[in-house]
């Protein structure tokens, strides 16, 4: 780990000003992912700005939906009655992730910004196009059994966001409030927050240097209340998803009025499948419909030798999740 300075910011203005002065610095909240990256020399920041004193907490109903402060911890949000009742998939995604110790420390903003768990990215001894542009991607012909099959490029097949929360947030149309400087806020839907690996592999989100995630807002909806998050992994806890599905259905009289579908573990980013939603909407809530939706969701999959199973696994995961919410 390199030497770095550490400053506790008292206000958002102080925080964004500090970052403006040192663009190579970083914000630190729970630190559960940033410190790992710094210890492995994958991130080398000269300055850390501690934002834990900032007033970015609170879980409240607003006219736009449930607004959650970015500094709320995974545990607190996952167990919050409003989240449990109105957005069960979000609660489940939080509580199925990481370990209790990590969930107690990790902030929601930090969770949204976690980076890929691709073994080649995480070990600086390997070439990696994401880390060192043009150095190559050994994962293509190597260990990619848990890498992405949707939205991948020829130079990177990492699931840039390996976690769970953003999968659920993506499904339920969550919007991030970002703040670059005092009074300079913007709203970005989560579906537009992550960037697919194109020519800018290192740029994974639309977040600008020094910009802070201050809140997450999730619109209220019937399909969000009737939702679930299903996660398939190699062990029962403390593992990233091989495939996961966040789904919500509004079913009336056996017919699907509205549907939300997002997949995790299989996409280069949290994978909202509007194709699946289109197939579901207006159709009877039957296994045949769910199967057709799953096929549509994986239509564009580009699997390789060792992650080919994910096509079937993701489809089955999605069907199972839909069955669970359809009841």
């Amino acid at each position, binding site marked *: 780990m390199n030497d770095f300075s550490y400053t506790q910011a008292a206000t958002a203005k102080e925080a964004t000003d500090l970052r403006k002065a040192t663009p190579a610095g970083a914000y630190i909240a729970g630190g559960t992912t940033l410190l790992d990256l710094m210890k492995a020399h994958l991130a080398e920041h000269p300055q850390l700005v501690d934002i834990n004193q900032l007033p970015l907490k609170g879980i409240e109903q607003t006219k736009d939906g449930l607004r959650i402060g970015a500094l709320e911890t995974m545990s607190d949000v996952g167990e919050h009655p409003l989240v449990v009742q109105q957005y069960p998939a979000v609660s489940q995604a939080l509580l199925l992730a990481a370990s209790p110790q990590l969930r107690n420390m990790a902030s929601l903003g930090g969770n949204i910004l976690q980076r890929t768990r691709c*073994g080649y990215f995480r070990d600086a*001894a390997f070439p990696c196009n994401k880390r060192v542009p043009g150095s190559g991607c050994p994962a293509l012909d190597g260990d990619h059994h848990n890498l992405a099959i949707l939205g991948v490029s020829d130079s990177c097949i990492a699931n840039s966001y390996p976690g769970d929360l953003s999968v659920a947030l993506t499904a339920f149309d969550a919007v991030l409030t970002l703040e670059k400087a005092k009074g300079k806020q913007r709203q970005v839907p989560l579906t537009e927050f992550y960037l697919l690996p194109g020519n800018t592999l290192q740029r994974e989100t639309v977040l600008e240097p020094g910009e802070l995630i201050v809140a997450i807002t999730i619109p209220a909806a019937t399909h969000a209340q009737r939702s679930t998050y299903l996660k398939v992994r*190699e*062990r029962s806890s403390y593992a990233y998803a091989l495939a996961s599905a966040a789904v919500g259905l509004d079913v009336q009289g056996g017919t699907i009025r509205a549907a939300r579908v997002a997949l995790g573990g299989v996409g280069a980013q949290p994978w909202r499948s509007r194709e699946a939603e289109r197939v579901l909407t207006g159709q009877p809530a039957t296994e045949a419909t769910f199967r057709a939706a799953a096929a549509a969701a994986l239509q564009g999959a580009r699997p390789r030798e060792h992650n080919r199973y994910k096509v079937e696994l993701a489809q089955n995961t999605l069907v199972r999740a839909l069955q669970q919410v359809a009841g």
Partner: protein
Amino acid sequence: MDTEPQFFETNAAPGVVGQPLSRVDGWAKVTGRAKYSAEYNQLPGLVHAVLRTSDVAKGRVTSIDASAAQRQPGVLAIFTHENLPKLAKTPNNPEDQKAFASSPMSFFPMASDQVHYAGQPLAMVVADTLEHAQYAAALLKVNIAAEVPTASYLDPKATSYVPKSVKGTEGVTKRGDAQAAFRNAPVQLTATYHHATNHHNPMEPGATTAHWEAPDRLTVYDTTQGVSETQKTLAAMLGLATEQVRVVTKYLGGGFGCKAWVWPHVVLAPLAAKAVGRPVKLVLTRPQQFTGMGHREEQEQTLRLGATKEGKLLGIVHEKTSTTSPWDDYAETNSRIINMLYALPAFESTYHLAKASVMTSTSTRAPGDMPGSFAIECSMDDLAYQLGLDPIQVRLLNYAEKDPTNGHPWSSKSLKQCYARGAELFGWSQRNPRNGQTRNGKLLVGYGMATASYPVHNSQGNARVRLYADGRAVVQAGATDLGTGTYTIITQVAADALGVPPQNIRFELGDTILPTTQWSGGSTAAGRVSSSVYLAAQEVWQKLIKMAVIDRKSPLYGAKAADVVMEKGRLQLKADPGKGEAFGEVMKRASLSDVEGTAQGRYGSIYKEPGAAADANMNKEEKDAAAGYSMHAFGAHFCEVHVDPELGTVRVARWVSVMSAGRILNPKTARSQVIGGSIFGIGAALMEQTVRDPNLARYTNADLASYHVPVNADIPDMRVDFIDEHDPHVNAMGVKGIGEISIVGVTAAVANAVFHATGRRLRSLPMTPDKVLAAMRQPA
């Protein structure tokens, strides 16, 4: 002792041997007072060494630019192959190796510019703080002319060969004509089994703290399973006499075989300490643990099994192919258990190796027997289904009443009772004989079982017992406690042997200044150390009895020593227990504050054969022949799995293990051992695998987030039971080890349950969701 070894019968009533005494070191551990080898931080002037290891798996170091690192504050020394002090004897020299008691591979890094595996140490930085050393190590600019590595035996570039021998077993062994037996057998089964690379991953990583107390006196606090072996090996490598090196390991945070050996870091720490003139601590990082202390090699086995139509075995032909290092012909000897587990008339085994750019693999909990049992126990299950037999029935049909490899009787064997008790506890009779028939909602439910066995390896060692007149005692043996309960069980044995309560015993271990005993490995420690301590206590009694019978003031004056016994700390006449006195009285009259006894305990076939013990050149078979008995622990595992056929997940829902391993000294610590071994095996069955990149030969998941070991949520309530065994042949305590047998058969029990659940046979470990889904696509 001048009498024949006596078999332990407890002197205390009720004795503490066999009772579930809680760990005597538990309080020290939970309060942090237990000092592990990386925690001797008060040593004067202690500084820190950090290794810089190779990014690439093959090549030549062209330069290491240390200028930036050298300028960092606190940096005391930087070592590379260009300036590392030379070893007096080195693993790189086959002649030198003969002097080593514990050398795991024929290679020592930083002796030349050659790079043979990713993670090989290339440089070592010593600095005043850990952080300074780490940062400076990161600043070293290492330039390597990389070459194309070979990743494993599966690499198209790899060439396989049949070695002359692996681990003392010949490359090809034959008993009878197994090829013909298979060829002519009415029932023939052929199957190939794959096993991923596994790592031990003890919670405590490898760590060595070296302190030169004088130019000719070195003390090393090391994470080792054998202080004495480490002492002898370090002394030889550093050019010291054995007595000039002291090795201390008071507590160990798990070993599992990887800490049985002197790996490079154990030698590098004292070299660094000598050079900088200060104590040096070197702790492997978790990623370095994956390339610093060996692993269980990836391997495949093909088993050809011939049987009669009734299900009796006629012959087995076994072949194993695995990866080894550029220097060693190393493979786990899987054939041992396949050869001996059943009444098998003919057996042939061949080992194939392929050299690759990896370090030498090493002993990993039940080396050979663990993966070997996967092959034989899945094939026995196949045989049962093919012939419509119950899996237990097919095993009973082939029950080995004597050792098929040499015709010797077993010293004891209670495997039938293990099957029966296990079946009863598990509810095996509820099993649907047909596979793929039991559902629980969307889940497929399956039952599986497998046999376990592990040999009694010969070993010996010394112990000292000092009994004080006030009824307290100090007991010593240079053993190690891997965290498994050695402190506790030896305390119990000493308490009963001395007739005093366990709280009066202080048992000291883990130091070469204590009586020499062999390592804790191969499941030998419990039997060997307990026997040594018990026999040393007998010597204390013999001394006291001899004093009493010539002491005019003793009620025992004039009695024959042979007529006097010790009962609950009292010396008394066998025939007239009322006549006697407390041992303290004898000591007080003689003005002795204490009486000391020492003894050598022997474990295995050498127990009753001192002549055979002296002949170090005898192999196990010859020693068995001398003793006339084959010695093994036996057991059985039973398992229920729930398989999700659409999501590919396998969860163990119920578990029963029944073990017969001689006398169980403490059912609580023994149960923990069996649970631990079973969970270790469930990990290997369902999730553990270290992946080496097929082109770069570097691990892609060298950390505990991506190398999956089971978590609590993966493990159900586990039922463990023991079959009491009286075995007077294995050692004076009648104890067989249980550390390793507990993992043997586990992977097969799980795979057999998956077969019962799904009708699909998975022969590649671990059985991850991708493999389950692939199997489900095949017809049942």
